[in-house]
């Protein structure tokens, strides 16, 4: 009872921003029509025109996204920006999406590179505002399949500029895994021949990978979005992962740890990032990777502007600069992901990388279910049920690992 109450208090607290308390608690569809994500963001308007650069810019970025030469003198795309615009850039790197959300609440940052599991929370809490894409010339060259997606727009209003993306691919050692797998069954089937040699991702968000598998193999569960799971669907995904656990050799959160596992052959099949596959291959491991028939989870990052920013002109200039073909290519190449700008591939130092990352491949991109924060309001638009939120996901993840 107490639990319910606390939850309700929490929900109503958000409801000021979400205006969803009514919809969520009496499960009717009355009131303001919910957005595609099941919530209505606070009313904020985008910048209408650029002014004079303010001379300052505070950037909150994933490590590797805003390099200013301090990590490696040869890797620096911040200094040219400062010279072009006169905006002095202060970069603060963050380690997790949750850290980014918390830091954005301080109001000290002007732009942030948000992954899908952070962006919606920032939109809903009013920490970021819509983006006027007309003020970002390079937006025209962004791949259309990255624009106006559920993690970077609400009701077709853009909240940011796409930066780059990648899939959590299935990877395997070609010398130990035969024939080449085409399905996640190789990792989820209880009779998988690779028992004890499987490597899985160590994060609550990995539950979505199980949901993607169930979407194809148990259609009667009716999962439409792996991040919008009601009780029954969620339990099915958790059960699947509990059954998988005895087969798992280890869970990885550090991609270098996984690289080592694949290289030494302790693990022969697992979920991985392209950068891991490339790294292990370059060290001589016979690896192959693919997005299996069921599709895959992945990430798609977006540059967003803080609602309270005092340096919005500099912020827009930064967003335009960071997705310009050359810089977008530099960042994507350094980080190991597909760039968002369609002209970036021509700027890659290693031309083959764009094929490796499937940068131009809309069909490949469509197979990816991008990371999104699970919230009580079902992201697939259902209003008759309550979905499991990220807190539930975290608790379940602890339970799965046992």
């Amino acid at each position, binding site marked *: 009872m*107490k*639990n319910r109450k*606390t*939850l309700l*208090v*929490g*929900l109503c*607290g*958000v409801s000021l*921003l*979400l205006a969803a308390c009514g919809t969520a608690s009496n499960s009717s569809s009355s009131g303001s029509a919910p957005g595609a994500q099941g919530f209505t963001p606070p009313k904020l308007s985008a910048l209408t025109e650029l002014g004079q650069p303010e001379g300052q810019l505070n950037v909150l970025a994933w490590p590797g996204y805003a390099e200013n030469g301090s990590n490696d003198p040869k890797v620096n795309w911040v200094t040219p920006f400062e010279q072009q615009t006169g905006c002095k850039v202060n970069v603060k790197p963050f*380690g*997790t999406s*949750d850290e980014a*959300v*918390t830091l954005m609440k301080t109001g000290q940052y002007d732009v942030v590179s948000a992954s899908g599991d952070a962006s919606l*929370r920032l939109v*809903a*809490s009013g920490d970021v505002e819509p983006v006027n894409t007309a003020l970002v010339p390079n937006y025209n060259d962004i791949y259309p399949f990255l624009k106006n997606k559920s993690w970077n727009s609400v009701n077709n209003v853009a909240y940011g500029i796409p930066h780059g993306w990648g899939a959590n691919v299935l990877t395997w050692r070609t010398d130990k895994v035969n024939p080449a797998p085409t399905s996640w069954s190789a990792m989820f089937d209880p009779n998988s021949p690779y028992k004890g040699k499987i490597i899985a991702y*160590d*994060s*609550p968000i990995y539950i979505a990978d199980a949901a993607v598998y169930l979407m194809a193999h148990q259609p009667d569960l009716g999962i439409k979005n792996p991040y919008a799971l009601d009780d029954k669907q969620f339990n099915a995904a958790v059960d699947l992962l509990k059954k998988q*656990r005895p087969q*798992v*050799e*280890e*869970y990885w*959160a*550090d991609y270098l*740890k996984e690289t*080592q596992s694949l290289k*030494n*052959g*302790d693990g022969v099949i697992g979920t991985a990032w392209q950068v891991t596959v490339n790294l292990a291959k370059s060290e001589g491991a016979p690896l192959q990777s693919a997005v299996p028939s069921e599709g895959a989870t992945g990430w798609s990052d977006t540059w967003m502007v803080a609602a309270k920013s005092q340096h919005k002109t500099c912020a827009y200039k930064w967003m335009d600069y960071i997705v310009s073909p050359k810089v977008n290519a530099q960042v994507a190449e350094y980080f190991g992901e597909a760039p968002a700008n369609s002209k970036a591939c021509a700027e890659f130092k290693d031309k083959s990388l764009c094929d490796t990352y499937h940068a131009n491949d809309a069909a490949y991109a469509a197979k990816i279910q991008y990371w999104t924060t699970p*919230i*009580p309001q079902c992201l697939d638009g259902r209003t008759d049920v309550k979905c499991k*939120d*990220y*807190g539930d*996901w*975290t*608790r379940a*993840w*602890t*339970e799965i*690992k*046992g």
Partner: protein
Amino acid sequence: MTAVSPPSRRASAFFFRKPRLRLAILLSAPLLWLGLAYLGALAALFITAFWSTDVFTGQVVTSWSFDNFVTLFSDSVYRTITLRTVGIAALVTVVDAVIAFPMAFAMAKLASPRAQRILVIAVMTPLWASYLVKAYAWRTLLSGNGAINWLLDPFGLSGPGYGVAATVITLSYLWLPYMILPIYAGLERLPDSLVDASSDLGAKSFRTFRSVILPLTFPAIVAGSIFTFSLSLGDYIAVKIVGGTSQMLGNVVYDNIGAANNLPFAATVATVPVVIMLVYLAVVRRTGALDNL
């Protein structure tokens, strides 16, 4: 003799007459540190444990409830993890004590004074290297085609792979110096004359060990065990590196802060090792081990 003495003289005379005040001022800085920084942080942790987190905005909601503790006790998975963590910590302590005692004995009683100094430095050397490097070194050693399997292979055996056993091995290695040094200090204080007297009275070496050396150094062993036990209890990195799929209490705390942004529940879980340590300290206090720290 002048009527006016310098202020410092007057102050010292004043404090001389008021010993309690003198004591209070001398102790206030350390007490402030202990009270505010240390116990205060623990108290804050304990209070946070009764709060909750707003699931969407990630803000801490400061309304009181026992929900976190109910989850902690009702969910069997946390019991399993607590038992596993205590088990690992106890095993690490035993392994360390068994390895450390002969080493410390050789250092304190058999080595020459010069060799003693070199041995103490040798024992401390691993502490100079980064924790992570050592843990990853064990990861390489324990790997499927690592050195341990290579050594065991001719005998038809294979290493433990990644898991609880690997975690115990790694943690035992990491905390060994913290066990050796207190036992070494304890053995050094043990007068040789007692050992000589024991053998003069006809005791064989094992009897001397069991009746003289062990009882007198037991508090030192317990002192070492406080380090190895508490350090293992709070560890989450080693088990992440070599633990395969298993997790310890520290991982639950880490996941709740790092992934779920749920500081209150992390605080609730973090009280478990604190309580276990308090019980452990209360038990070992009677052995006099705390005087050996």
